[in-house]
């Protein structure tokens, strides 16, 4: 049981990192989008291994469903899937980005927060129901917890996003 979860984690981590790399390396934006779907799905399965079942379902629906459809729709609307549409020139950007990225990942891994993290983790029975729809709903809609008001504000945020997208994308009326 112990090794099985480790093996699952390593497989998911390798698939996730590989497809994330392919998002950056692929020349065709449609391929980038499809590799991004793979990354989203591996993150969804990682959520299940972290006992966040509801978030895994939401991840598949919102990210792998809605957001990716939006991306593919815009790519095909702008007809950028042709490889000659946007050539990536070799510039000074690339080596600098690699050096900065290496420094960044080193700083993250050897950060104080990670090295001095409390080792005492929650027990397995404590976290068994952590991510069910019931637990999420009970804390999201509980007036005694700080999540109810942000939840209501989120609806206004989404309304603003809808209006903004329409205003931006509509053609001029003149």
């Amino acid at each position: 049981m112990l090794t099985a979860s480790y093996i699952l984690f390593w497989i998911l981590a390798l698939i996730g990192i590989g497809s994330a790399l392919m998002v950056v390396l692929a020349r065709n934006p449609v391929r980038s989008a499809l590799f991004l779907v793979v990354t989203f799905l591996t993150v969804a399965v990682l959520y299940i291994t972290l006992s966040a079942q509801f978030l895994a379902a939401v991840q598949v629906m919102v990210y792998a469903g809605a957001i990716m459809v939006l991306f593919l729709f815009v790519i095909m609307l702008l007809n950028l899937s042709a490889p000659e549409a946007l050539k990536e020139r070799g510039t000074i950007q690339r080596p600098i980005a690699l050096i900065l990225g290496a420094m960044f990942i080193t700083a993250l891994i050897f950060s104080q927060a990670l090295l001095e993290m409390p080792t005492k983790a929650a027990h397995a029975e404590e976290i068994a129901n952590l991510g069910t729809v019931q637990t999420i709903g009970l804390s999201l809609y509980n007036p005694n917890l700080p999540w109810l008001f942000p939840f209501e504000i989120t609806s206004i945020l989404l309304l603003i996003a809808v209006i903004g997208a329409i205003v931006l994308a509509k053609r001029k009326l003149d």
Partner: protein
Amino acid sequence: MVPTHFYLVLAGILFTIGVIGVLVKRNPIVIFMCIELMLNAANLTFVALGRHFGQTNGQMYVVFALAVAAAEVSVGLGIIVMMFRQKETIDIDEVHLLKY
């Protein structure tokens, strides 16, 4: 149970790949995808630490981050479509003025 460190390091690697993508890519759609990658890595950190401490708070943050990501993508892709209509290109180096 896989230790939380593993998840945090994985999230760090995914975040770094997103950062590098934002720095090197010149297609704003792919830059957006890399931003989504970074958001996902941050969400993974929230969920992993939420499990580590046995609290729901981490997953609550992810719910809101999802809503913000959806809003951000819809507005951002609207901006890209408008940019393409006005300039006939979406090369990020060609679009360096806030005012057109």
